[in-house]
């Protein structure tokens, strides 16, 4: 089943955070690139049902984003999240599991599984306030996976991870992408290069590119920079560039 986003828009008083974004995502890892302020977090929040769009729809299969059915298949890691004081990693995951509607035995099982998956099993009884940034991030990833989501949305998931953790994270996301839809946003180009099947680029609230590595053809970083510097406006746009409301398809 696919995630369908149709003409999603969100305006704030002095800024257009999202401008008629339309796309469809199937299984695999999709990377969302863009500068700070490009609208990535706004888009992700709308996909998670946290922000109500001004217009447009988001559906997964038959379920609209506002339904409980949709949220039951969703896993989300926000850019920044807090925790109730005094919670240990275990407490935190059990709490989130309860919110996601998992039964207690299933919750306990999943908590154990995920803590070892993200490498926190030795720290599970320690309070979260003693955690480093990277550890907290890993805990966030664990909570997003609690309900075995079909749609996993990660906002800047690799921020704060050291290189070894990054590799581990990439492998995990790669595996998950084989079964589910993964959308991850970042402003670190190298992350996307290695794991994304499909690349999306946003600028000023608009989706300016939706395609694969092949469509880009050249080095991703250079391409990315070109988009934001507007160098060579006369060069032919590569396949996948979004012009108006149509996407150029390449290689068919």
């Amino acid at each position, binding site marked *: 089943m696919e995630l369908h986003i149709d003409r999603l828009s969100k305006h704030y008083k002095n800024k257009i955070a999202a401008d008629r974004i339309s796309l469809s995502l199937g299984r695999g890892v999709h990377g969302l690139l863009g500068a700070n302020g490009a609208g*990535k977090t706004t888009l992700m929040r709308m996909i998670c049902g946290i922000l109500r769009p001004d217009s447009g729809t988001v559906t997964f299969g038959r379920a609209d984003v506002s339904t409980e059915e949709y949220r039951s298949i969703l896993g989300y890691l926000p850019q920044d999240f807090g925790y109730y004081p005094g919670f240990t990693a275990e407490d935190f995951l059990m709490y989130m599991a309860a919110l996601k509607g998992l*039964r207690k035995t299933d919750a306990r099982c999943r908590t154990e599984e995920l803590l070892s998956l993200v490498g926190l099993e030795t720290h599970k009884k320690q309070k979260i306030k003693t955690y480093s940034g990277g550890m907290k991030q890993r805990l966030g990833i664990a909570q997003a996976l609690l309900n075995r989501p079909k749609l996993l949305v990660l906002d800047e998931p690799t921020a704060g991870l050291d290189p070894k953790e990054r590799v581990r994270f990439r492998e995990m996301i790669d595996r998950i992408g084989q079964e589910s839809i993964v959308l991850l946003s970042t402003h670190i180009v190298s992350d996307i290069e290695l794991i994304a099947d499909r690349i999306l680029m946003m600028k000023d609230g608009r989706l300016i590119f939706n395609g694969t590595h092949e469509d880009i053809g050249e080095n991703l970083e250079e391409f990315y920079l070109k988009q934001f510097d507007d160098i060579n406006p006369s060069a032919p746009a590569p396949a996948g560039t979004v012009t108006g409301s149509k996407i150029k398809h390449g290689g068919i």
Partner: protein
Amino acid sequence: MKRNHFKQKTLLTKTLRSLYTVPAPERKDTFFQSSDYRAAARETLYSPRISWSVFLQTQMHYIRKWNWLLTLCIFAAAILLTLHPWQTPAPQEQLQELSTPVILSACIPFLALATIAEAGRSARFGMEELELSARFSLHAVLCARLGILGVENLLLLAVLMPLGPHFWETDLSMTAACILLPYLLTCTLTLPAVRKLRGRDCTILCTGISALVSVFFLTAYAADFLTRAVDTPALIPAALLFFGVAAVLELRKYIRQSEELTWNFTLTG
């Protein structure tokens, strides 16, 4: 030779396919909408699910214990003071009895404060985004917390009310003014504050409001204002009605707001 073979096969399979046509199914949609299917699907397809009552139980577990303690203390204080009324020496050597209900009226604002603070913990600790995207969303969490504690609070107030006419020699109107009014007033004033502010400012403001309400009732009694208000016909019932309705409206606004993220900490990205 091989190409011919291949063409033959494709022709064969194409012809085969054309031989097997199917009339469109007629009852597909009704089936998937039917209650049989939905009931069975709910059991199996969505994650092994907990029901609302179990959810409420788990939320109850997460409400901090001192909320229950506070209720107990107020109740205990009420009983104690009823049995041993507190007498203070007044300046003119008159023994002024600080009536129990008035003391309680000073405490009850903090009961309301505690409940609202407890409900607002998600906002205080940055858990809103996570809770909003969960199946039992932030909205559900808030309703659970406010519901549980709210009911508990109202039960306490309901238990205290009959003590007035029976033990404190205060009529119904005065008892209501001392027990119910402070609660409703505090709610009406603090709920908008929680809606509009976050973090430390919010805590300080809310505590301030509760303290003010508390002091107001004490002074109102001391200045005889309270007694005069009670004597004015229909004033207390009107005040109760007004603040009751106001509190409910504010509550609705608060809960409705929790359906989406309204506080954008990171306006970038």
